[in-house]
């Protein structure tokens, strides 16, 4: 039997199906192989693509030279560590809702949830609800955002919160963690809380409830008053138990509502079947049914309630699956008003989870303002840093957005000097790195010098010294200035000591100070004998010896 002949397009189609994880049939594989044998173009392409395939652990064909790779790793680690290791007081305004005490520094370092984390659902309508709550909320009260991944199972995260939700007497904002085992009170509006694995519980107005996590794969809600509706996606391995008035419903994949009228629990089920354990036995409530446990009545829930629950289910589903963009906005000086599409987000530094899309970001302080159009992608992190140069005098008023939301308890009083805790050096460091990448050497040097001037003694200043040294040496033609920076770095020491020492040698070489260069080379070889630059150092040392010998 003759084999099927295929052209390039058909071969592409098979190839793309393979790329999609599908397994071609035997005949298709044979046809593809035949085509590759006969078609020079496809054969060449296949051979070319073979060369670019990457295998972890396999040696690259054209390896990066070790000096470069070591340098990249050392710099990346130094930068990342410098950016992470800010002083403890930088995070002093983080509030741990578990403690319920005064704001304090977080227990663990490296926590990502700095500042206020705000959840805005994907739908525009929901966004309005949350942000409008947010404006009032930021004026005061606790801002709980600590998310300790190691103990995450003990906490629940509020997805959507009214201004009137509290735990331990503190306001609960969207994005806050709720401690397990403590009472949550909602006086009006709805509080939606993530239970994990896509499950969400929403408490209605006038509700008191306690959330617990008795074991892995089980979340428990104790309803003390009011109503709760629960969305549990099927097949995710999570059981949710809802207890109210002596009745208990355990579900694995459904959407249902349970509420208390006085002490009498009622259950309405939109999807699936919910088995409710009551004092007098177990009752099953099917889709579209409503059970009154006190009277023992089973009723049809009626079209109006069904429609209402359908809308609620959509909303919770949206909340559970929405992938926001984490937006971090910083500025020098801090305390600038940040608005996104005209909605006030807070004062810098601001950290918010916002809905993705094309948005207009505006940052203003006093008379200075700047704006930028952002393209926010779901699930991504966007960080923006601004330097507001023309800061108005202390008497000047803030922007309209600011005064509207923050007259009660402004976080940074107007006209107050920039807060040194606001990671300004991190912003400057990033700005300098950006400028260096754009080959704007003078501006980059100014930014590095600003770090040295304003934040002496920090790790950022140490990193900046080495970068500035190389900038002065390689691009600005100022080896004397560079030498000063390298020596200042070496006097304090740090992870970039080898780079700094090498920079010192190069400066001395550029300045023609042979005797000092020789001493520096000897020192370098003694301290970094395994350095990849050691062979060059020895060569230069020999050259110096030859030059000095008669």
């Amino acid at each position, binding site marked *: 039997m003759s084999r099927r002949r295929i052209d390039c397009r058909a071969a*592409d189609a098979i190839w793309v199906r393979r790329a999609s994880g599908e397994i071609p049939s035997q005949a298709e594989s044979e046809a593809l192989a035949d085509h590759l044998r006969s078609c020079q173009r496809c054969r060449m392409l296949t051979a070319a693509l073979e060369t670019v395939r990457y295998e972890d652990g396999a040696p690259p064909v054209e390896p990066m030279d070790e000096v470069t790779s070591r340098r990249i790793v050392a710099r990346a680690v130094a930068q990342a560590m410098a950016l992470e290791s800010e002083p403890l007081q930088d995070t002093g305004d983080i509030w741990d809702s578990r403690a319920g005490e005064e704001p304090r520094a977080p227990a663990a370092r490296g926590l990502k949830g700095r500042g206020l984390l705000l959840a805005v659902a994907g739908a525009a309508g929901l966004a309005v609800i949350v942000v409008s709550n947010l404006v009032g909320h930021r004026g005061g009260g606790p801002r709980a955002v600590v998310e300790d991944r190691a103990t995450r199972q003990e906490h629940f995260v509020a997805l959507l919160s009214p201004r009137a939700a509290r735990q331990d007497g503190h306001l609960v904002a969207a994005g806050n963690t709720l401690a397990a085992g403590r009472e949550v009170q909602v006086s009006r509006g709805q509080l939606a809380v993530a239970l994990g694995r896509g499950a969400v519980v929403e408490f209605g107005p006038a509700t008191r409830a306690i959330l617990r996590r008795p074991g892995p794969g089980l979340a428990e809600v104790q309803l003390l008053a009011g109503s709760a509706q629960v969305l549990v996606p099927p097949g995710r391995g999570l059981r949710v138990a809802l207890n109210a008035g002596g009745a208990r419903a355990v579900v694995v994949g459904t959407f249902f509502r349970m509420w208390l009228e006085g002490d009498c629990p009622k259950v309405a089920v939109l999807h699936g079947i919910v088995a409710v354990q009551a004092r007098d036995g177990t009752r099953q409530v099917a889709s579209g049914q409503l059970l009154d446990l006190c009277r023992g009545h089973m009723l049809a829930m009626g079209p109006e309630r069904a429609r209402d629950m359908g809308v609620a289910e959509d909303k919770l589903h949206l909340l559970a699956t929405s992938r926001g963009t984490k937006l971090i906005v910083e500025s020098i000086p801090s305390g600038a008003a940040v608005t996104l599409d005209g909605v006030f987000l807070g004062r810098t530094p601001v950290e918010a989870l916002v809905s993705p899309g094309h948005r207009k970001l505006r940052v203003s302080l006093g008379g200075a303002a700047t704006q930028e159009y952002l393209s926010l992608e779901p699930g991504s992190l966007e960080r923006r840093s601004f330097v507001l140069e023309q800061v108005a005098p202390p008497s000047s008023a803030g922007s309209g957005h600011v005064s509207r939301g923050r007259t009660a308890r402004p976080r940074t009083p107007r006209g107050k000097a920039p807060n040194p805790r606001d990671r300004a050096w991190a912003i400057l460091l990033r700005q300098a790195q950006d400028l260096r990448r754009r080959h704007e050497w003078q501006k980059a040097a100014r930014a590095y010098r600003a770090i040295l001037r304003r934040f002496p003694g920090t790790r950022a200043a140490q990193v900046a010294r080495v970068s500035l040294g190389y900038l002065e040496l390689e691009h600005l033609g100022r080896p004397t200035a560079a030498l000063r920076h390298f020596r200042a770095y070496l006097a304090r020491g740090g992870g970039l000591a080898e780079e700094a020492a090498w920079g010192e040698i190069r400066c001395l070489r550029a300045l023609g100070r042979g005797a000092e260069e020789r001493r520096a080379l000897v020192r370098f070889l003694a301290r970094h004998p395994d350095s990849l630059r050691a062979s060059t150092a020895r060569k230069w040392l020999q050259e110096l010896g030859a030059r000095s010998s008669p």
Partner: protein
Amino acid sequence: MGRSEPTLQASTARHREDLRLARAASLGDEAAATKIAQRLLPRVRSTVRYLAGDGPDGADLVQDVLVEILRSLGAFEGRSSLETWADRITVRVAMKRLRRDRKRLSLEVHDVDALQALGPGADRQAQTAIVQARLATLLGQLTEQRRVAFVLHVVHGYTAPEIARMTGSPVNTVRDRIKHARRKLRELVASDPVLVPLLGGEP
């Protein structure tokens, strides 16, 4: 495919180790951060090379990607391998930079002339290096989205659904991008005066 399939046990052990390392690094352990950076550097460089070129800007970009990865380690939950997680960050950072510096960042591979100077007698490794360098240049002629999808597939062996998840695009769109990228690249390779003799073609 570019990735091996480890046994479940080995995979779990490695995940645990990755999580431990990531957590230590996110808490300020420089040794852990260095270990991760060293491990991911070749992979990041490989991706960046074909997405954004290999010049001095490429080296800067590799460094930036590593910084971003190290800074994000606190968010690594071990749901995927550290490499897969890092690839997502690499693509995001690289493409963001490409968009921002579209005019400045050129997809040039600077060493290709030097490699070509090795002549026809050059060994196989040198020839492969030339092919890679030329391909990196030709990939620059694809649209950004097609390049991302194609590079993730041919360099790292991700399937279309995996790429769709990484880039937030529909699977069929990714398939389409890969198909068009392949078609375009075939034409470019077939008309490239450097590649054709190296790949055994006849001009």
